[in-house]
């Protein structure tokens, strides 16, 4: 691009260069479209790479190492106390992000995707104006909105730079290790970041307004994690809400509400992890035919097209699972549809992984949603205390659970809690997408001794004979 150029024409404008945006841009470029990608960030990667998945997993990996070093002591291997060098840790995290972001820059260049920094606002169905940019105006034939989401602010407070009330992004900056940390919200963000800080030495208190952690995930999968977090955190309070939150110098004064509410107290920092909201309200969408649904999500059809036929939307802005891999899948669909292909979003299993220790992963139908939908299903579980591999790692609390159609025994859902479920869940997603029967997994040889055997053995229970567990329905 020539700097100072005021107006630009492009076939496809992608707004937002997070996972959804860049996946869409790359796919479209591969299909021969001329693509321009606009973002307020300097480099592609978005929330996921700079303020979400990647930095959090970088830190969670370290937390896991700390934990594993401790766990090794009863096995006869004792390490010294870990020395935490926050500066070095931040440097390391930056290095990780830089490496990935630079990779995306190269990929953009190699594909001829033009990147422009700025804030795009729709003027109409075929043009945007840019703020804070060298380019003033972009006309496009199609646009993909992939502007993502932001952490919800706690009512009456704000996320200030260097403030005591922080969002996930603030927590990931790792400015210090607060002595006391209050995590508000028992979803995966709260649990993951709470785990990081607890492992680094903070005394973490977690409050959740509902009666459970990880709403939407089957309780039996959450149980082992909850047990573990009970020891890692100072305390976990369910059915508790926040009455007031006041930033006061070096502290935040917090008043709780609820039957089992802890006494009002102050914390060094408070992490707000009560959800995310789509970034859709400052895009000038009112100047287009795009329609919004509840909570300001953009309404799209299964080709990711909005009510405005030249504008598509992918990722967090359209709601559903707010996950990077879902955004990427949608991005690719949108790109293909714009390039004239008959693609639709028809995924049947979107895997989700909580990178705590133990990890929780699931995909497809959950037990609770099956109940809600009155689906006739059969469910079997394989406790990891029967898995050789789990025992070698002293991880017997894990569990693998399979949900199948009652009649055909076609796999509809898989849930796993334990170590390394991030890799295990892929088999479940593939099985569901392929329409596999429990028998298909049971008849597939799984390497021994691995945790993946637990998936095979769970499937074997349906058939009436699993090697390491007595089936209730012996055949």
């Amino acid at each position, binding site marked *: 691009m020539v700097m100072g150029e005021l107006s630009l024409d492009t076939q496809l404008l992608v707004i937002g260069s997070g996972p959804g945006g860049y996946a869409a841009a790359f796919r479209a470029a591969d299909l021969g479209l001329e693509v321009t990608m606009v973002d307020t960030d300097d480099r592609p990667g978005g929330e996921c790479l700079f303020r979400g998945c990647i930095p959090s997993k970088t830190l969670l990996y370290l937390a896991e190492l700390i934990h594993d070093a401790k766990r090794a002591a009863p096995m006869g291997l004792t390490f010294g106390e870990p020395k935490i060098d926050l500066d070095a840790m931040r440097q390391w995290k930056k290095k990780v992000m830089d490496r990935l972001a630079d990779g995306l820059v190269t990929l953009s260049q190699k594909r001829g995707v033009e990147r422009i920094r700025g804030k795009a606002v729709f003027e109409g169905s075929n043009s945007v104006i840019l703020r804070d940019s060298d380019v003033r105006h972009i006309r496009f034939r199609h646009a993909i909105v992939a502007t993502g989401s932001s952490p919800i602010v706690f009512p009456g407070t704000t996320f200030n730079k260097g403030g005591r009330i922080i969002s996930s992004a603030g927590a990931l900056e790792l400015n210090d290790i607060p002595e006391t940390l209050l995590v508000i919200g028992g979803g995966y963000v709260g649990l993951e970041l709470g785990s990081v800080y607890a492992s680094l030495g903070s005394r973490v208190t977690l409050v959740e307004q509902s009666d459970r952690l990880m709403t939407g995930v089957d309780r039996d999968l959450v149980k082992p994690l909850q047990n573990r977090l009970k020891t890692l955190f100072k305390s976990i309070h369910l059915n508790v809400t926040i009455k007031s939150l006041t930033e006061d110098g070096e502290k935040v004064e917090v008043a709780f509400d609820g039957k089992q509410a802890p006494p009002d107290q102050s914390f060094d920092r408070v992490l707000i992890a009560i959800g995310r909201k789509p970034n859709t309200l400052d895009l000038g969408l009112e100047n287009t035919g795009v329609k919004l649904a509840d909570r300001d999500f953009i309404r799209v059809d299964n080709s990711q097209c909005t009510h405005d036929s030249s504008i598509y939307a992918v990722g967090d802005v359209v709601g559903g699972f707010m996950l990077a891999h879902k955004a990427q899948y949608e991005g690719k669909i949108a790109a293909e549809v714009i390039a004239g292909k008959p693609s639709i979003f*028809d995924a049947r299993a979107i895997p989700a992984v909580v990178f705590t220790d133990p990890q929780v992963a699931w995909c497809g139908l959950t037990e609770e949603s099956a109940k809600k939908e009155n689906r006739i299903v059969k469910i079997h579980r394989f406790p990891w205390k029967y898995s050789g591999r789990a025992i070698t790692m002293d991880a017997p609390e894990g569990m693998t659970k399979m949900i199948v159609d009652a009649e055909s025994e076609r796999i*509809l859902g898989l849930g796993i809690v334990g170590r390394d479920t991030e890799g295990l869940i892929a088999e479940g997603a593939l099985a569901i997408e392929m329409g596999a029967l429990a*028998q298909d997994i049971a008849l597939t040889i799984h390497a021994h001794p691995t945790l993946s055997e637990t998936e095979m053995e769970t499937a074997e229970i349906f058939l009436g004979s699993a090697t390491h567990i007595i089936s209730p329905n012996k055949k």
Partner: protein
Amino acid sequence: MAREFKMPDLGEGIHEGEILKVFISEGDHVNEGDPLLEVETDKAAVEIPSPFTGIVEKILVKTGDMVKVGEVLITFSKESQAQDKKKSGAIAKEPKPVAKDTEEKAEPSEKITGSKAGQGPVPASPSTRRLAGELNVDLREVPPSGPSGLVTAEDIQKFAEKQKGKTEEKSSKPEMPSPEASEDQPRKTNVVQLSVPPLPDFSKWGPVETIPFRSLRRATARQMALSWSQIPHVSNQDLADITKLEAFRRKQKTKIAEKGGNLTLTVFALKAVVTALKAYPYFNSSLDTNSGEIILKNYYHIGVAVNSNEGLMVPVIRDVDRKSISQLAIELFDMAARARERKIGIEELQGGTFTITNAGPMGGGYFSPIINYPEVAILGLGQARMQPVVRQNNDGNQEIVIRLMMPVVLCFDHRVVDGVDAIRFTRMVIEALEDPEELFLNMI
């Protein structure tokens, strides 16, 4: 295990065909080489012989089905003996029908299809679902062949073919996106692709009849549309005085007929055209816009348009420059007859470098034929008629005489050749036809 007979590869570029006839029934004993099916491809109808001797177990196709190369058409029961017809000498590479296969354990005893419990989406792999999208197939309508109702890619293919047949017969109305629908549901638009606007419902104005648009008709349409959209056509029209040639033709006709040929005007035109092609080689070329090259061909394979009951066919006479008039008369007669009966091989329809279309026998006058893409020109001949012609007699005076005049039209690709070349080319053809002796001299 049963032996499967799959749709064989019928030659260059042919991917599918329509089953015209099924000669056999289930349970029939057939010998290797017996005709099984008649399949019509874009260009020709072909009889497909059996590669096996054995008992027909199941026929998976019926008349009217569109089948793709590689699709299973017929299965033979296990005692069928495979005999690779083409490479009978070589050791068969295919897996032999091993007895073991038949002893295989039975399939899982409980076979449930269309399960009540299965309220969810139709089980099918992501690639199968994508295929369904591409072929515009609703998964729920497809009869599944996989375990417990799993729909496979093959199921989709088969269903799509059937659906295609149906919609062609019914001349379904193209779906119009209804404007009301866009209110509640986001619109799905087919961007990029330009589409033909939908036709009105003609039956509103009177009774209609719909004819399937298939095979030869469809192939012709595709070829003509391609040619017309790619080639800037220009035509050059003239008249040839064939009085002398016609006299010669009538004299020689019976002689040729005794040899089994038919001495038509087209036979002479073949020779005349080759003479001109040799003088103006660009008319015997193809333009490759991708590589930016003109490909001159050093052979003279001339296509001749033949009308069959099903439509237009263009059999190609190879190496016209190396054949005698009587050879050409015999070959053209044979080829045209076979083309009319759709008994012509696909390879006999390929490889042409120039085409002649003679509308004379049907009584046509001037007309402007479409070039047979990727050729560069086509010669059209009209019906020769007696006409008053003004010419100079031997004394140098003008006189009006009655001559047999034939309309000659050369349509050419103006990207490759210019009007000047076309006029010269046409003149050379005309001069050859007007002076048979000269023509024969050139032929030797």
